[in-house]
């Protein structure tokens, strides 16, 4: 294998390991940190089922963001859903052996690249042109959007402007990463840039604001049932205090 292929292969495993380990540690931190008080925010569901519905509305529809800002919602929602579709679109590359029928039907999902670029550009434009959003943006906020836009552009160039690499080699390389049966990368700067940036994105997941993805599920204002009067809610550290309590 060429040095480039070896470096990219190593980088892939490094990135994925960093991501998995980092996110796991973060999830463990969130899960093990107590929630001493009931703090659901309005409109607070009174049942567990209500919480599940609320979470689904937030995760799938971005319902709070919709209430807050229609433009941000439009850009953000398009971007996230396009990303999901394009993720599915990429699964066949990695599927070991025979690609299942259902994954062979995903060809048309490539058009999600356009809403992806549109949404990301809108979000980036807001950072430049809306004074409030500009004020709260750190360099990392711009860079992350630019990284995503470049990933989307390089992908779109290969797909729609015929800059595609040797597809046989792409399948072999991607499959090889999953089956530990490594093979040579195809040549082509655009392709290499594309996957390099994706690996970077994977690597920085646990040390960046992408943590909002696991974070939303741990948000006590969203995931708590509003039943404080019916059911006692108490954390371990508060319970320890109580054991030493003298009543009042």
């Amino acid at each position, binding site marked *: 294998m060429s040095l480039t292929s070896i470096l990219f292969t190593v980088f892939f495993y490094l990135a994925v390991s960093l991501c998995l380990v980092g996110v796991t540690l973060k999830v463990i931190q969130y899960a093990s940190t107590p929630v001493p008080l009931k703090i659901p925010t309005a409109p607070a569901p009174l049942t567990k089922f209500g919480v599940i519905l609320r979470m689904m509305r937030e995760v799938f529809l971005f319902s709070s963001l919709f209430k807050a800002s229609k433009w941000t919602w439009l850009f953000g929602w398009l971007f996230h859903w396009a990303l999901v579709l394009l993720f599915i679109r990429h699964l066949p590359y990695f599927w070991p052996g025979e690609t299942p029928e259902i994954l062979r039907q995903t060809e048309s999902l490539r058009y999600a690249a356009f809403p992806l670029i549109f949404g990301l550009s809108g979000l980036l434009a807001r950072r430049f042109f809306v004074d409030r959003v500009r004020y709260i943006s750190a360099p990392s906020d711009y860079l992350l959007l630019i990284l995503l836009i470049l990933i989307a552009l390089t992908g779109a160039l290969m797909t729609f402007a015929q800059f595609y690499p040797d597809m046989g080699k792409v399948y072999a390389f991607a499959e090889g990463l999953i089956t530990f049966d490594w093979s040579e990368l195809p040549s082509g700067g655009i392709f290499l840039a594309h996957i390099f940036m994706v690996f970077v994105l994977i690597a920085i997941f646990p040390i*960046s604001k992408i943590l909002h993805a696991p974070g939303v599920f741990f948000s006590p204002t969203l995931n708590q049932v509003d039943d404080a009067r019916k059911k006692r809610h108490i954390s371990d*550290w508060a319970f320890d205090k109580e054991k030493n309590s003298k009543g009042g």
Partner: protein
Amino acid sequence: MEKFDTPKLETYLKTPALKSDVMTGSGPFKANADMQKSLGFPGKKVDNWQQVAIEKMGETISKYRSLPVFLDACVKCGACADKCHYFLGTGDPKNMPVARQDLFRSVYRRHFTFAGKYFPKLVGAKEFDESMLDDWYNYFHQCSECRRCSVYCPYGIDTAEITMAAREVMNAIGVGQKYCNQILGKVKKIGNNLGMPEPALRDTLLDLEEEIEEDTGVAVKLPLDHQGAEILLITPSADFFAEPHIDGLIGYAKVFHQSGDSWTLSSYASEGANFGMFIGNYDIMREGALRIRKAALDLGVKRIIVGECGHAWRVAYSFWNTLTGIGDGATDEYALQLQNQLNQNYPQPQHIIEYTYDLIQKGRLTFDKSKNDHRTVTFHDSCNVARGSNMGGIENGQFILPREVIKAACNHFVDMSEGTIKASTFCCGGGGGLLTDDLLELRVKGALPRMQALKQSEEKGGVNTLAALCAICKSQFSKVLPYYDFDPFMVVSVHQLVSEALVLDGENSQQESKAL
């Protein structure tokens, strides 16, 4: 006090252009050494304050899941940026909820995250230096912990949690706010925010009884420390002396009189407000709640009912069961004793609105609504009730029940415009420990969005009465309404409306006989 300009009310609420640092300053008065020490905080800023502050931050982050989640999850989308009444009223960018959080988050990133430790500039991580502490003290006392931002955040990030944590950290290094900490000292020593001792309270209640009897001819009682009463009423102490609060207290007394349930106030726990929440201190908040538990046990009551107070109801509804085991599931002996003693056929605690609403539903109260015909009423949803509690155990009950009670007592009711009420309600501008004259400019400017909505309902709906069910809202409105050319007396307690329209048994004949 420096002079300031009251913002103009436009036709619509406008999002202001950013005016950097217009609200910069030294913040509200600081607590002195005695006030600090009485709560167990250092008397003055400790020498190694940075170290202590970072340690305290680490401790709060490890004790409250909301903090690591909220600090990590924010993507700076700006959804909250134009939702805070203090931002809308001042234009100071540090009053955008996300920017306020960032004062905390930037220090968190510097000391607790990989990216912030090694690439501080890249991710906006900052050191906790003197100027950062100044910003903390100033801007974390420009947040009323009203949680409006949390309703719009895609991750439910609640700036109130960050503000509480920041105040907790500042108290731990000896930098406390006078208004909150002085009041907490009084509760600790005497039992209420005013520092009103038992004899003064007893006198006040006797005066009120006389006043009601003069007005109505009916001997409505306001019992204090009545052993064996059915109901213990816990109400904010402002109800004992402030206008228009006191008319609400008269309203509760009349409702109890009509229902026939025996009730009592407690001189030991004569405060519903719990400023321990405002400063984010679990122990102090719990101490306040335990006072109430002790009073309930000592008086042998079967039910606990909470008067009109926003954050008191949040603490009572959402936190009391956690803090004192008032509802179900506690294991220590006092909590068990209380659970056995209380009548579990009722939710514990209940809000006075829930109590009155139940009586209305059962047809046990008679109203002469024409008594309120000179009023066109609108209702201000208090933030802590709207976004931190429930009433009636039904979804959105905290919005439905008060309106139903008002409508039972008044013929003319108009809501303010959508987006300014219910879950989206604007804070009055004085909540969260900011109801102090050294923050008057902030309070006036922060009231702008509410005043805007009120103005619209005045012009379109002829509203001349603003009903509220929170002691802080009532005091704040009384103070700031004149700045916007409203009549300060247009604020009323919900139970004042009840009081004015409620027909007491024997009242009419008494008055008629007088007339004869």
